[in-house]
């Protein structure tokens, strides 16, 4: 109960207002830090859901002629695994980091539109619950995370509406759920763009922004330009299914390939949406633990911008096998190879940053180094499948599954854990346990390689992706069993992480304001920060403002030209 003062010295009990209750403070918050934490909790909740789905897939494929799941359920599980991991884990988690860290990094007191920020969060939470509620109806999406036409609407003898051909709600859950998640992404992106462009502390020019902020800005623009394509594509599906249009139905003059063009013109920028913020995290974590400024700041920042532009020119490399004209194949093969250049610039700069540095191999640094190695394997796979004749051989095989998992698990997920171990002390005021963190890292490194590296071989042995089971005479048995063992190692690693989280929240060491002796502004306030972040908005004179403050005699702005 709260109290209300009637006259001086006389108070009466009254019922608490909603915003005074614990639950009300979460429901009504507009504080970027609290919303960031809510994004992270939601992301990791769905990470567990997607992880369970992954283990079900691998259990089904562990041995030939597996009978763990029915074919129908298997289709739903692998579809929801992709949807969950991409749209409900990696995207909200990266948005959560951005929400929490970016305003602190740039010396702002909140995001530019705090209510819109809260709205974006609630939409992604309810959107995720909406899609997953499909399991309750036995009608989860089952056409793959990319939901190709005509799988999303059969075309022959359908009558007026596509929904008559695929009468379940599976595809509707996918389309409407994705529309909801798109709304959330647009609101978050608008907020990041305005916040970063308009609310930076005095002196923080674009050329002095932390690289995580830079990459968040590029990612926000990518989302703003990529999401409309997905929204249009899914909107057309809803029209086809419910209002009798025929955009994707060849028999009625539509074109199923229109779906692929629209989807992948979102889908490939999406890959960079999932990895660019991680590039930014790594670019801020490596210098902190190497005790050096980032090598080639300008190249690292602008290579991110170059990747952003080029990501809109590569979408049809997902479609080499559909029969594109040779000139289109040549164009998309070239643009895909070109995008490796700015990516390689980043890897080179990261390597140069740690070269001759005083490396401190704390858990965030371990994950950052693991990220570089794993992402490099995934990136090189990407260059391989950009070569059209090779892509013809391995398209829709496990080789591609290996490539995307090295990029998204070895890349994005390792980066997310690097960021989590790095910024958790700022969010909670406590350090995560170092030993449990190291155990998690090594289990994950082993698990990733045992699970995903053999997929290269399986792909070259022509095992198609998305198949429900396989006969025992094709030579795939041992490799599949090995991959399943690797997947369970990954499951154990994630359990270690959650144990670490609980133990550290209960009895972790106090972190203090600046546990890593870091360089950027988010560490120049208490852990966790007060509501208003900074009592006095800081003034920035270099790319390492907090380093300058701690070392006034050798501040960057005195000794360098930036």
């Amino acid at each position: 109960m709260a109290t209300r003062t009637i006259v001086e010295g006389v108070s009466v009990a009254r019922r608490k207002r909603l915003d005074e209750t614990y639950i009300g403070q979460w429901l009504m918050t507009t504080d970027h830090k609290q919303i960031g934490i809510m994004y992270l909790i939601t992301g990791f909740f769905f990470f567990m859901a997607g992880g369970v789905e992954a283990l079900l897939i691998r259990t089904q494929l562990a041995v030939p002629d597996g009978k763990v799941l029915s074919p129908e359920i298997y289709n739903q599980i692998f579809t929801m695994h992709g949807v969950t991991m991409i749209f409900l884990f990696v995207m909200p988690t990266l948005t959560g980091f951005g929400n929490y860290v970016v305003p602190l990094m740039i010396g702002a007191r909140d995001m530019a539109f705090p209510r819109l920020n809260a709205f974006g969060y609630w939409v992604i939470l309810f959107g995720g619950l909406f899609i997953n509620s499909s399991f309750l109806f036995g009608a989860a999406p089952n056409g793959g995370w990319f939901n190709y036409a005509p799988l999303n609407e059969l075309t022959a003898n359908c009558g007026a509406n596509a929904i008559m051909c695929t009468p379940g709600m599976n595809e509707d859950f996918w389309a409407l759920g994705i529309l909801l998640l798109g709304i959330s992404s647009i609101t978050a992106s608008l907020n990041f763009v305005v916040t970063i462009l308009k609310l930076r502390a005095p002196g923080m020019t674009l050329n002095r922004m932390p690289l995580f902020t830079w990459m968040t800005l590029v990612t926000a623009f990518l989302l703003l330009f990529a999401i409309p394509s997905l929204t249009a594509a899914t909107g057309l599906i809803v029209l086809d299914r419910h209002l009798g249009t025929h955009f994707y139905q060849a028999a009625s003059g539509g074109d199923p390939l229109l779906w692929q063009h629209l989807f992948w013109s979102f889908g490939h920028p999406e890959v960079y949406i999932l990895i660019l913020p991680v590039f930014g995290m790594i670019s801020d974590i490596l210098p902190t633990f190497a005790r050096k400024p980032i090598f080639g700041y300008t190249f690292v920042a602008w290579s991110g911008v170059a990747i952003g532009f080029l990501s809109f020119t590569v979408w049809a490399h997902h479609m080499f096998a559909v029969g594109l004209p040779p000139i289109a194949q040549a164009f998309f093969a070239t643009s895909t190879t070109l995008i490796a250049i700015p990516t390689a610039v980043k890897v080179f700069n990261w390597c140069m940053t740690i070269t001759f540095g005083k490396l401190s191999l704390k858990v965030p640094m371990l994950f950052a180094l693991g990220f570089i190695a794993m992402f490099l394997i995934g990136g090189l796979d990407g260059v391989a499948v950009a070569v059209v004749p090779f892509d013809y051989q391995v398209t829709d095989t496990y080789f591609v599954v290996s490539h995307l998992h090295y990029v998204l698990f070895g890349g994005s997920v390792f980066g997310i854990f690097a960021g989590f171990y790095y910024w958790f002390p700022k969010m909670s005021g406590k350090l995560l346990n170092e030993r449990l963190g190291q155990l998690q890292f090594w289990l994950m490194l082993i698990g990733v390689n045992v699970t995903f590296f053999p997929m290269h071989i399986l792909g070259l042995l022509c095992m198609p992706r998305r198949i429900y089971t396989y006969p025992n005479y094709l030579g795939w048995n041992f490799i599949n069993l090995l991959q399943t063992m690797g997947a369970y190692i990954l499951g154990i690693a994630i359990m270690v992480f959650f144990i670490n989280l609980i133990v550290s929240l209960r009895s972790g060491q106090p972190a203090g304001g600046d546990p890593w002796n870091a360089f950027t502004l988010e560490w120049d306030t208490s852990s966790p920060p007060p509501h208003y972040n900074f009592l006095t908005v800081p003034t920035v004179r270099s790319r390492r403002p907090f380093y300058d403050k701690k070392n006034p005699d050798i501040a960057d702005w005195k000794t360098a030209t930036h």
Partner: protein
Amino acid sequence: MQTELRKIVSEEQDQSQPGQQAAGQESSSPGAQEQVLHPHMSYWPFALAIALVVIFMGIISNNLVVLAIGAVLAAAAVIGWGLEHH
């Protein structure tokens, strides 16, 4: 809320360490320090998000009543959001 914040602000000023301000940094005016430095709470974003999901549930179930309820809720949430004191 304001009184509470003023108290926090003054406590933090007492605890601030020498050299906490960056070199060349200007100190803010006392008036600026006393203003509320973070946004008000609001339940309209939550309400609008729920309304959107109700609309989508109406679409997926082909149920016009649910869809209409969602539309009314959304309109109410948008109006409430717009009229809220910011």
